[in-house]
């Protein structure tokens, strides 16, 4: 929306050409200027510039919804609002399961079962809707090389023996889980940026990133100057891209995180590794 060209905002043609001579071609460039600069660049008076601002704003502003419309939209299709985890206690606390359309973070000390949980959810996502799944493919971005396809099949076969009675069905599950091994922050970010087209072409219904913390920990040593800013930058970019994908396609996105010790004056408390600068939205 920010990169929308001014040509498409129904501004008069000569004005667009005049602006492009000053290197103002997108809505972003236009809205970042102050009113005085706009008057100089467009050669129009104050009131006309205000009208132009409103026109350009209308071209890139978001649409209004009332909370009631959102609730109706949710209630029309309740099955598509959550992915049940089949752990009844957890589903009860989460009001139905892992929510679609937002990011969920799973964090724990090592060995508690985060990767197992992710593999379980991959199986669940490929199940048909009648069995509580999402009937779609899964994109699994693995940074620790901890994913095991054998474990996937073992889980599927033992958990739903009645459903997975033939080899074809197991094969279908494995074909629908797309695994990407990324080992650096840069490649993780590039992969996230390329996901939009893959989601549409492969009918993906779940994105799992296991784990964000390991690449960040490897590459950014927070004791060094300047690393904190770069790390926050990377996390912020990744988070906003993932949020956009989650909302646009109404699919759940799961991230795993590690535990680190935060040393404060009183006690050493356990804290999530990915710092609060991230502000990912957690489900209740």
């Amino acid at each position, binding site marked *: *929306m920010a990169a929308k060209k001014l040509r498409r905002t129904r501004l008069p043609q000569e004005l667009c050409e005049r602006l492009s001579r000053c290197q103002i071609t997108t809505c972003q460039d236009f809205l970042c200027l102050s009113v005085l600069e706009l008057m100089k660049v467009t050669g129009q008076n104050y009131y006309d510039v205000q009208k132009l601002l409103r026109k350009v704003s*209308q071209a*890139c502003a978001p649409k209004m919804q009332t909370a009631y419309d959102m*609730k109706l939209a949710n209630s029309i299709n309740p099955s598509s609002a959550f992915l049940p985890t089949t752990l009844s206690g957890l589903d009860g606390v989460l009001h139905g399961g892992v929510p679609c*359309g937002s990011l969920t973070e799973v964090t724990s000390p090592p060995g508690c079962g985060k990767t197992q949980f992710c593999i379980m959810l991959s199986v669940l996502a490929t199940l048909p809707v009648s069995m509580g799944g999402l009937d779609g493919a899964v994109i699994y971005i693995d940074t620790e090389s901890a994913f095991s396809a054998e474990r996937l099949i073992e889980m599927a076969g033992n958990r739903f023996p009645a459903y997975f009675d033939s080899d074809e069905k197991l094969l279908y599950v494995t074909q629908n889980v797309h695994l990407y091994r990324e080992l650096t922050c840069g490649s993780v970010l590039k992969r996230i940026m390329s996901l939009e087209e893959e989601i549409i072409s492969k009918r993906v219904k779940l994105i799992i990133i296991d784990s964000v913390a390991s690449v960040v920990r490897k590459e950014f040593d927070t004791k060094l100057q300047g690393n904190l800013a770069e790390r926050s930058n990377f996390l912020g970019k990744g988070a906003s891209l993932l949020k956009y994908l989650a909302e646009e396609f109404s699919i759940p996105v799961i991230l795993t995180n590690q535990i680190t010790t935060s040393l404060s004056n009183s006690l050493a408390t356990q804290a999530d590794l990915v710092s609060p600068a991230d*502000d990912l939205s957690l489900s209740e």
Partner: protein
Amino acid sequence: MHRAVGSLPLAPALRTRLIAAGFQTAQELLETGPCGLSKEIGISKEEALEVLQLVRQECHGDSPKPAAASGTSRKCTALELLEEEQAQGYIITFCSALDNILGGGIQLTKITEVCGAPGVGKTQLCMQLAVDVQIPECFGGVAGEAVFIDTEGSFMVDRVADIATACVQHCQLIAEAHQEEDHLKALETFSLESILSHIYYFRCRDYVELLAQVYLLPDFLSEHSKVRLVVIDGIAFPFRHDFEDLSLRTRLLNGLAQQLIILANDHKSAVVLTNQMTTRIGQNQSTLVPALGESWGHAATVRLIFHWDNGQRLATLYKSPSQKESTIPYHITSHGFRDVQPPAVTPSAEDTEMNPRKRPRREEEQ
């Protein structure tokens, strides 16, 4: 009438031409007339007429009219302001300790900023306020509507529905205790559906959409004149990452703050912003401070900082022109934002919190 030509909001090219031709005050322009102007400057007669119309509009706006309350310049005495402020309602937060330290609740016509680490309850407070602004006047509310601008995607409709249901139940309890006509009539329109339909939600994905939306807000608020609350949840998020030019960021944020102040004043609504915390690395220690830098600290009139202390959530009033700095604990329950100790069970105590305006009448009755 004696306004200098250089200060008129004309197109810059025209302005330079007028000054080069020797015009100094607006009076001279009006005396020359459109034909004379077009001959002297070398512009068409239509353009000259436009210039004169603009000049006339500007000059009439400037001349002092005692009764006019134009949006741009209002003169009034402090007494009038005092009366206005006392008549104005507050948006209660359902946490009486927080309302007390704020002096009654979130004030209209002021910008309130809520800062805190993630998970501490900023979005919960925003959702609570979006419901509380709609409480009818007979129950102590301002009976307004809410605009919710979300930049982080943390608005959960089901949670708002829970908070709204709890609020409606609370009002129903009061109505039952009092059995008055206006209470019951107000309750007919104060239901879950009406609350949800009066929360106008905008999802802004990046700072350009946020800027565009804030430019369009004055028109929106003129159409929906009952809006009394504008919430921007996450003003920091779109500006924090991916912004190399820090001076541009400061300039955009200042422009945003000014527009919001004008909005709050013209439409008599409260503006609530939420901000993130960032780490400031000092010489030998690092502290958590609100994000977006020092200059942003001047934008908000009232600043609240939410933080944790050994598992208890605390709210500190960090900056306020009228109340003193203090810290109170609060809870987030399934019904929303609440006090740590539940308020007294007797209905009279509850009502004094909800309806401060009703207190004199009840004392007379008793």
